[in-house]
């Protein structure tokens, strides 16, 4: 039943083919302009996600795989001091031996960056998963039941949004501890309101549709309608938001690192960059210590943003002012 209501772009399994098709359609439409001019091009333009999307996804997949497989990859131990070379003092610049160079303690930056990805991506993933679970649930319930409950939830969202995000993160991490769990959940709380608002708006736009009415007429109760009818419609466009939210959380971790409030144990991208840039002398003499993690962080955030943005256009997600 839900299939009918999804946006027209769902049944495409071959975006590359669609690319080719899309580039052909305007030419055809130009020739046969007496037949519904422009209509076909708009649909086609919406359907494709573009090659940039797949490059982004490939990069994200590579970083995620490297992070997961880090203990089994043939790379140096990130915490072990490498043997120093004769007549040369560490840190060593990038080269064939150390791809990203080494740091002040002569540790391999390449391996440290991969191990940093483990913590940074975990923070990002847990944060957005928390936001989706809590914010998504609250937003959907508020959008479905409306009334007093909706007003209450909306007020909570407004309160959460009226703290500048970083200030709330500072407050919580400063008062509690700086474990991986606390920081992930803190950033998760920050994503509750933005995610919740989209879930709410999107639920409202579906709640009065015919297929919901049909389901209710057939005797479905509220829980069933929410889970079986509304959830599939709300969750798919939210995947775009998940990618964008993950990028925000990964960046937020880096920001907290620069305030001395990031995860205490292990290395994160933020902490690696801070370590390379904490003194101007280190930055001048061994810029690779901060630039290597900066480049990896930049490419990852770029890929997450780009893939998320393409998906958002694809599913046409809007935070409707309802």
């Amino acid at each position: 039943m839900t299939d009918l209501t999804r946006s027209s772009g769902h049944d495409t399994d071959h975006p590359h083919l669609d690319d080719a098709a899309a580039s052909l359609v305007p030419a055809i439409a130009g020739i046969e302009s007496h037949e519904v001019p422009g209509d076909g091009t708009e649909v086609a333009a919406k359907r494709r996600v573009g090659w940039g999307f797949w490059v982004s996804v490939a990069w994200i997949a590579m970083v995620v795989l490297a992070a997961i497989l880090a203990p089994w990859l043939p790379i140096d131990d990130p915490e072990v001091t490498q043997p120093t070379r004769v007549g040369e003092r560490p840190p060593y610049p990038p080269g064939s031996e150390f791809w990203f160079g080494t740091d002040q303690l002569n540790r391999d930056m390449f391996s440290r960056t991969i191990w940093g990805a483990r913590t940074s991506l975990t923070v990002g993933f847990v944060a957005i998963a928390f936001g989706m679970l809590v914010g998504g649930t609250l937003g959907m319930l508020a959008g479905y039941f409306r009334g007093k409950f909706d007003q209450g939830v909306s007020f909570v969202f407004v309160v959460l949004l009226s703290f500048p995000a970083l200030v709330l993160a500072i407050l919580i991490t400063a008062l509690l501890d700086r474990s991986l769990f606390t920081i992930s959940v803190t950033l998760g709380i920050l994503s509750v309101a933005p995610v919740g608002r989209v879930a709410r708006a999107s639920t409202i736009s579906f709640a009065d549709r015919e297929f919901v009415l049909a389901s209710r007429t057939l005797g479905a109760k509220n829980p069933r309608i929410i889970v079986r009818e509304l959830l599939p419609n709300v969750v798919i466009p939210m995947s775009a938001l998940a990618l964008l939210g993950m990028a925000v959380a990964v960046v937020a971790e880096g920001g907290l690192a620069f305030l001395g409030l990031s995860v205490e144990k292990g290395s994160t991208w933020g902490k690696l960059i801070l370590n390379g840039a904490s003194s101007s002398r280190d930055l001048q003499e061994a810029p690779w210590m901060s630039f290597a993690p900066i480049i990896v962080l930049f490419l990852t955030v770029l890929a997450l943003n780009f893939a998320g943005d393409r998906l958002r256009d694809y599913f046409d997600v809007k935070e409707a002012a309802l």
Partner: protein
Amino acid sequence: MRFWLQRLGAAILLLLTVSALTFGAMNILGDPLFNILGPIAGDTENPENIALIEAAEAEYNLDKPLPVRWVIWLGDFVTGDFGVQFSEDGQPPVSDLIAERLPRTLTLLVMAQLMAVFISIPWALWSASKANRPVDRASTVLTFAMIALPNFALAVVLKYVFAIQLGWFPLAFTANDPFWSRMWQMVLPAITLAIPAAAVYQRLLRTDLITTLQEDFILTARSKGVSRNAVLFKHALRPSLFSFVTIFAINTGALIGGALIVENVFLIPGLGRAIVEAILREDFPVVLAIVMIVSAAFVILNLLVDIIYSLIDPRVRAA
């Protein structure tokens, strides 16, 4: 009139909630007594210390229930009494610290926003006039890159290139330098904040401009012989600035967070440095005051946007 009162009431309610949450979190999760007395607070064996603890509790109202303390603190806060800095010798008032640090952060924010606006508006006009041509697509890719580089990373890159390699800017902020020299020291941090902001503004304004350019009155103006540039500047820009105003305010919140971080890279003793130092020393009133000032500024800013918005577009008031 009813609309204004409602908006004002909502803003005040919001500020009260934010302050209650912050104050409550600080008092329940933190240990104010420890912040005041240090290790003595935990020592309840020694009778001398018990006397000290009781005196401190009485002085700082810690013997009263939390809601009462909140009301007392709120009353003090509204009248400009932010408490004292426990971690400093002689316990100077927090307001001294704020008065010293706030202007620097504000300067940084104003500078960054001005730069972002002056970059983004001409850029968006140029992009919109060349919508979907290769140059416009390239500039859209550029905005993606500008947004994807986090402010702390951008700060490190800019510091390396312009302060270390080229030597155009000093490496740190010197509070005793003359005014213009201090302003110059703020330029690089302001650029750091302005670059992603400019990209955000450009993208939004470009989209709105393209929508506006498809309106009938633009066609009318063009057919009456108004030049392309005049149409862009005189006819299309103003009606396209609606969402720009909103994103400008929302982004100020993000910029405040960014300023706190960037200050720490460029060693500018503003509110960002102050809150980091206060957290390290567990100086509770300082953290509380800074969080409250920033949140209050944010709420008030949003209220101002609502007001400006309803002045530009009266339909908002009716809704």
